[in-house]
């Protein structure tokens, strides 16, 4: 069959490219379009255009709308809380570094007789350990160094290291079967706070700020208080990733108050600038920001405007918040002398109570240093002494002021610690490695049933044997106390209905609910 010389799909494979013609001509040819190509392409384009117009209306267009944060389009459509909440606000005492549950709460009297015995391999199973103890020749059992005693009407066993916590066991709800997926600090602390081991997801406080909103326009909805570090302790880093708003608008991220010096820097107006001038300046900045918003349409500009306004109002509200001079004498009797020194755990607990009174939705107090890989006997009493009274004072103070009726207090670390000793074990000292399979947390106040101990571990405080509570179940339970159904509380991002409890099914721990 005779082929046209310009035919592109010649049967004998001769194309103009094969002809002995100048390269310029060949190039020109390659840019030419044959009738077939033209018609074929037109047809495809029409097809795509039709498809796009079909989908465009329903799919793409709405996707584009949805990418504007709901906060910008008004939060009312969230319709939260889903049901009448027991708790209006929460205070989260975060024990960064992971407190050893074996030494504090998870009483295992049988271990004393097994001092320095090898932990049976069957207990550990095929678990992969951290690099710190994986190479150990043996895993000698290190029983708690301090005696336990029963306290309260519930007869709860508590270590003698926590004399103050022991006095309020009847008000607390213990979960001894909490467990996590991560064995190292960073992923575990991210999982605890954001429901995901990778950074970039919003934390619990940001979700609450986003979902429930503020109760006080003059203070942030979500405040983070860091406790001054004790250089003798093994302090794991704590950073703003943990109180980040992730993909939510940045106005929902936690506002950290400084632990030393002024709680907020530059709280005072500069010399020569009065409130009026300041206000005018902010109005002008806001006007410029609004123009930018109209031009660019980035919702973060809205957040920025909101943050300027919040900062302005905090100039008067924060000094009032941190002014402890009007606290009655009974406060100091309860919290102890530590509470007068800014940056201590007791001081932060007192501040947390004051913020609860003033309508701060979520306060998170970080205490670092619980990472006792060695010298448990030396470090643990110090850590307990630093935190025990603050915890007790906070719960008791909230209770006597009638605030515990609508405030949930949470005490937790990111994982537990091993029953076997890391490094050398002696009668005098031992260390404990990270342990994700079980750890103890407690809650108190609105939404949870006081005096309950939930979940059980095996005789080595190693595996959960009854009622396991995964981190996501724990977070789902916290949301439940605040009137939120964790399955319905979602935010569209990256094509997913993102939620705090991750896509893996999570369950509210019904057994501890009041």
């Amino acid at each position, binding site marked *: 069959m005779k082929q046209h010389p310009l035919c592109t799909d010649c049967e004998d494979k001769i194309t103009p490219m094969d002809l002995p013609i100048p390269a310029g001509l060949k190039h020109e040819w390659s840019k030419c379009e044959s009738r077939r190509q033209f018609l074929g392409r037109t047809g495809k384009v029409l097809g795509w255009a039709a498809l796009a117009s079909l989908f465009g209306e329903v799919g793409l267009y709405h996707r584009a709308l949805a990418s504007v944060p709901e906060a910008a389009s008004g939060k009312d459509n969230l319709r939260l809380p889903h049901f009448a909440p027991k708790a209006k606000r929460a205070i989260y005492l975060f024990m960064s570094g992971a407190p050893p549950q074996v030494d504090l709460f998870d009483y295992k009297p049988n271990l004393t007789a097994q001092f320095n015995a090898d932990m049976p391999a069957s207990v550990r199973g095929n678990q992969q350990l951290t690099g710190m103890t994986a190479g150990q020749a043996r895993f000698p059992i290190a029983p708690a160094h301090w005696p336990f005693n029963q306290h309260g009407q519930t007869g709860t066993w508590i270590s003698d290291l926590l004399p103050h916590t022991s006095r309020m066991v009847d008000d607390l709800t213990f979960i001894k079967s909490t467990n996590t997926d991560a064995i190292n600090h960073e992923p575990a602390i991210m999982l605890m706070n954001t429901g995901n081991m990778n950074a970039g997801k919003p934390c619990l406080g940001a979700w609450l700020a986003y979902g429930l909103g503020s109760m006080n326009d003059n203070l942030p909805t979500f405040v983070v208080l860091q406790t001054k570090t004790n250089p003798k302790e093994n302090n794991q880093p704590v950073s703003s990733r943990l109180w980040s708003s992730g993909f939510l608008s940045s106005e929902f991220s936690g506002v950290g108050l400084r632990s030393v010096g002024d709680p907020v820097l530059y709280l005072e107006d500069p010399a020569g600038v009065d409130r009026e001038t300041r206000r005018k300046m902010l109005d002008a900045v806001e006007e410029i920001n609004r123009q930018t918003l109209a031009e660019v349409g980035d919702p973060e500009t809205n957040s920025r405007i909101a943050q300027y306004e919040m900062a302005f109002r905090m100039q008067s509200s924060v000094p009032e918040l941190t002014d402890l001079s009007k606290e009655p004498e009974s406060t100091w009797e309860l919290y102890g002398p530590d509470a007068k020194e800014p940056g201590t755990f007791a001081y932060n607990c007192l501040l947390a109570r004051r913020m609860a*009174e003033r309508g701060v939705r979520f306060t998170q107090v970080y205490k670092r240093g619980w990472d006792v890989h060695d010298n448990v006997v030396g470090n643990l009493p110090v850590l307990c002494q630093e935190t025990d009274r603050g915890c007790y004072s906070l719960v008791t103070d909230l209770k006597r002021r*009638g605030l515990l009726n609508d405030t949930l207090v949470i005490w937790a670390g990111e994982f537990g610690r091993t029953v076997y000793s890391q490094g050398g074990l002696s009668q005098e000292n031992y260390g404990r490695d990270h342990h994700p399979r079980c750890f103890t947390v407690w809650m108190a106040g609105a939404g949870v049933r006081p005096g309950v101990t939930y979940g059980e571990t095996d005789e080595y405080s190693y595996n959960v044997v009854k009622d396991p509570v995964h981190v996501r179940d724990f977070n789902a339970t916290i949301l439940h106390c605040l009137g939120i159904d964790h399955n319905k509380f979602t935010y569209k991002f990256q094509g997913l209905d993102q939620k705090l409890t991750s896509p893996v099914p999570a369950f509210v721990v019904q057994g501890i609910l009041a």
Partner: protein
Amino acid sequence: MSVGAKVASQSRDVWQKARQGRRPRVVLGAATVLVLLSLLFLPLNGQPHADWLQFFGRFHPLLVHLPIGLIVLLPVLEILGTRRPALREAAGLVLQLALATVLVAIVFGALLAYGSGESGTTVTRHLRGGILLALELMLCVALRRTWLEAQHTRAYFVMLGVVLLTLTWTAHQGGSLTYGSGYLTRYMPPAMKRFVAPSAVSSHPNSFFAKHIYPVLDTKCVSCHGTTKEQGGLRLDSYESLMAGGKDGIVIAPRNPDGSLLLKKVTLPPSDPHFMPAEGRAPLTPDEIARIRAWVSAGASPEARSVPGIFIAGDEEEAPPPVGDYSALMPQIQQMQMSQGAKLVPVSAEPSDGLILRTTDVASTFDDAQLAKFQKFALFIVEAELGRTAVTDDSISTLIQFKNLRALHLEGTAVTGRNLAKLTSLPQLAYLNLSATKVSSDALGPLKNMPNLRHLYVFNSPAEPASADNSVRSTQ
């Protein structure tokens, strides 16, 4: 001519025709009718019979779905048959198959009911429905013939409609036998439920029995021991019938859980032939058994609200009555917020949960006059956060109009307690915070008459008891 008369006259025609040359078929039909009618006299008195009857009878639930499918298929074929004659031809076969399978299902059903000793109105109704259905189907077979011969065009379809209605009713009776009478309505949306099935009214709706015992019986026992069936002559669908017991005597012996037959039966090993619930139905959970045991030990009272040793979440706080729907007032509420600064915040997405009056942002300037402006929303406000505001004793006169108020925060205000007695007219008030006020313990006296006031806080006030730990006082 009425439909009934029509059907009757047509049946007469059919009979005439039948006499003219279809004698064997008519004889067969008449014999079937006799057998069916005789089944109506089957004694269903709760007396079980030979096991082999039950063995075959238990195929009834399997077989029964065959005629259901065929009968439902019938109108479809007839309607589509107007377009495609082949389908109409098939309809004839389907009708006859339906009749045949209905008869088989009825026989097996009768074996099941008779063999296992069923009794009660539902099982009787189910049996009668089945027989009626078979008779109607037979009539259908006859009518269809006349219809095909182009007589009485409508009668056949009327009969088909009657068959479908009978089928629905009979199948529902059967479903109630298997799954219990509340199966369809249990998870119905509440709005629909109110319309369809008004909830059973109990004389003591807040008693421990009504809240924690009855639901267990209802889900686990009543499908066999209720109005639908009365196995062992025992009904467990009300307090009275529970206490009356069955053929084996009483099943609940107050203050004697070990002597209560009901508790004995549910705690037997599951392999025991006397274990209840029988026939592989879901057993009672240890929690449920513990509740029943505790309730029996405490005297099995129909009125008691709580039982010692049993703590049930949400029990001690009764659900407060819902307030009205404020949605219509939303524009006014928002306007109020703009002008006053104080907010009316919904408790939850559910309007009947009410509103919270929140004054945090304007606390220092919020006074009695401002409070008075919220009277318009009085009935919707369930919580008033007036802590650290400028309200005084006079605010109480406004507050007593908030009839649905459950929580009142007056901490850190100038309230002296002069008017506290007036608060007794707030029946729902459960929480009152008077911390850091000038209230004296004498002023608290009248509050003792408020049965619902469970949380009273007087920390840092003259009324505070000497020991700090006792600043939380309960009025109960």
